[in-house]
């Protein structure tokens, strides 16, 4: 019976004309409707299996925040600054708040500075978990994706407890400090979430050799001089041998009082970036533990009473604030002419550079199968690129 069927099939196949492509050179679109690309696309030219050219296609998330901020007062802009990057809203909150604080010259209370760093590091942790999850998904390792997003929820629970929002904290880190103090019992819950994150990282280490290293070793190699020329910052730059971190080199808030290391690797490939991610999470946990130990008492906002926005003016001046985000260097240039709203705000996110020049450079010459590994190893976020 089986044999007969096979013979029958063979006969049918013989009648089909084989399709021989005349040309092995074709266009290939990675995104914007690809499940693994985010709101972003890359137009690729492929020869056989090899990418011969790549052209980034951004703009699907452009919301014009820089312009919107020119019409709003700082407390409104604090809420707006969440939306710059969905995946690390609190870090962008901090960038904005620091720019306003430096212009107004307000003395931020010490307790607020500690809480700011605490929240920024928690935000880095959950952002790195997304990085791990998205990278696992990119290389076809769904278990990693689910584990990472599951454990990320423990940190989101903390955000809900402290700020009221799971993803968007609604300007929790605001000019002058933070909106409100840590609620009772928050410290214990943070410690528990850290234990859970450590547990997850132990699980992740067990997957290293079977999945991650095989798909990412030697893929998307970036050399130090190229990285600097292309404007790479943050973990991407640290994975190719450049030991630089804004938290150490240009310290803000209380980072100069804390004890932590800057993980650096020399290989510059996707696997090195993945290893940097793991080490950075360990460092973040270290920072959070120190902050919890030393957390001083006191008020969390200066001035403690909220003034009606119409009466608050930003003094004339200009500042350039640099922060270390989970993805790299995040900066804000703020110019004020003494009005309630800033005259000009320029937000500099790490991904404009990572997703256009760096990505185009790395994809050129790579294999189709390696595209997602390269793409997600850069820890990209289209929201912060388009702004």
């Amino acid at each position, binding site marked *: 019976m089986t044999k007969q069927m096979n013979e029958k099939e063979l006969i049918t196949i013989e009648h089909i004309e084989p399709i021989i492509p005349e040309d092995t050179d074709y266009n290939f679109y990675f995104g914007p409707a690809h499940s693994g690309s985010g709101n972003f696309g890359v137009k690729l030219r492929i020869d056989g299996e090899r990418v011969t050219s790549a052209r980034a296609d951004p*703009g699907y998330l*452009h919301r014009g925040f*820089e*312009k919107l901020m020119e019409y709003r007062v700082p407390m409104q802009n604090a809420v707006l600054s969440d939306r710059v990057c969905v995946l690390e809203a609190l870090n962008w909150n901090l960038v904005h708040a620091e720019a306003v604080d430096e212009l107004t010259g307000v003395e931020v209370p010490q307790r607020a500075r500690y809480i700011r760093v605490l929240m920024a590091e928690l935000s880095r942790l959950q952002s790195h978990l997304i990085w791990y999850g998205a990278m696992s998904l990119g290389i076809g390792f769904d278990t990693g994706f689910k584990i990472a997003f599951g454990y990320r929820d423990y940190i989101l629970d903390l955000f809900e407890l402290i700020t009221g929002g799971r993803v968007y904290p609604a300007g929790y880190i605001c000019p002058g400090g933070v909106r409100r103090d840590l609620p009772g019992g928050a410290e214990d819950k943070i410690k528990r979430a850290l234990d859970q994150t450590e547990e997850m990282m132990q699980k992740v280490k067990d997957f290293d050799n079977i999945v991650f290293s095989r798909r990412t070793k030697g893929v998307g190699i970036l050399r130090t001089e190229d990285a600097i020329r292309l404007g790479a910052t943050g973990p991407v730059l640290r994975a190719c041998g450049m030991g630089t971190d804004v938290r150490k080199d240009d310290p803000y808030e209380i980072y100069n009082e804390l004890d932590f290391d800057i993980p650096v690797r020399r290989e510059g490939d996707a696997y090195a970036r993945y290893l940097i991610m793991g080490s950075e999470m360990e460092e973040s946990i270290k920072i959070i533990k120190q902050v919890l130990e030393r957390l001083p008492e006191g008020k969390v906002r200066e001035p403690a009473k909220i003034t009606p926005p119409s009466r608050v003016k930003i003094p004339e001046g200009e500042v350039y604030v640099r922060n270390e985000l989970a993805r790299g260097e995040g*900066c804000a*240039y703020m110019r004020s002419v003494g009005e309630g709203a800033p*005259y*000009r705000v*320029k937000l*500099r996110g790490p991904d404009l550079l990572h997703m256009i020049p760096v990505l185009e450079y790395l994809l050129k010459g790579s294999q189709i199968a390696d595209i997602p590994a390269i793409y997600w190893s850069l820890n990209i976020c289209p929201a912060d690129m388009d702004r």
Partner: protein
Amino acid sequence: MAESLHKESKVIEDISAKFKIAGKVQRERRVWVTIDKDNLIMLCNFAKGLGFEHLSAISVTDWPEEGTFELTYHLWSYSERILLTIKTKIDRANPVADSVVPVWQENAQIHERELHELFGVEFEGNKDLTPLFLEDWNGPPPFQKDFDWKEYVRQQCYDQANERERAYYD
């Protein structure tokens, strides 16, 4: 305080010795200088030679009353750990500036491409200034101060027949 700002003052000294311009140390690790647009490229090259190899950002501030665009170049030195901001002004009616692509290559290219789209500044020497974010946009550069986005939205999106929208737009 003056002692600790030694390396910041050194950067200003080096620059003013060559270009005869004054600078300002804002605080630790923040140095600001202003230069005319003809010497911009020379100063950028000089700054890169001083170790400012990372172009953090380029920004444009629009001053319609004055009739100028102010360009700010924020440079970071990995070795000196200083942020140097170079400011220059160009004519708003003829917004042309020299491109800094020869100095910072691809990094500068993408920043200039963004500013060309959002402010309409021409960067002479930048070969690729195709729009980045705005699709099928034919209006004026939207980040210019005299582009009234509220009026634009009113004209494009206000459905006057809809009672509910009236409360928002009027």
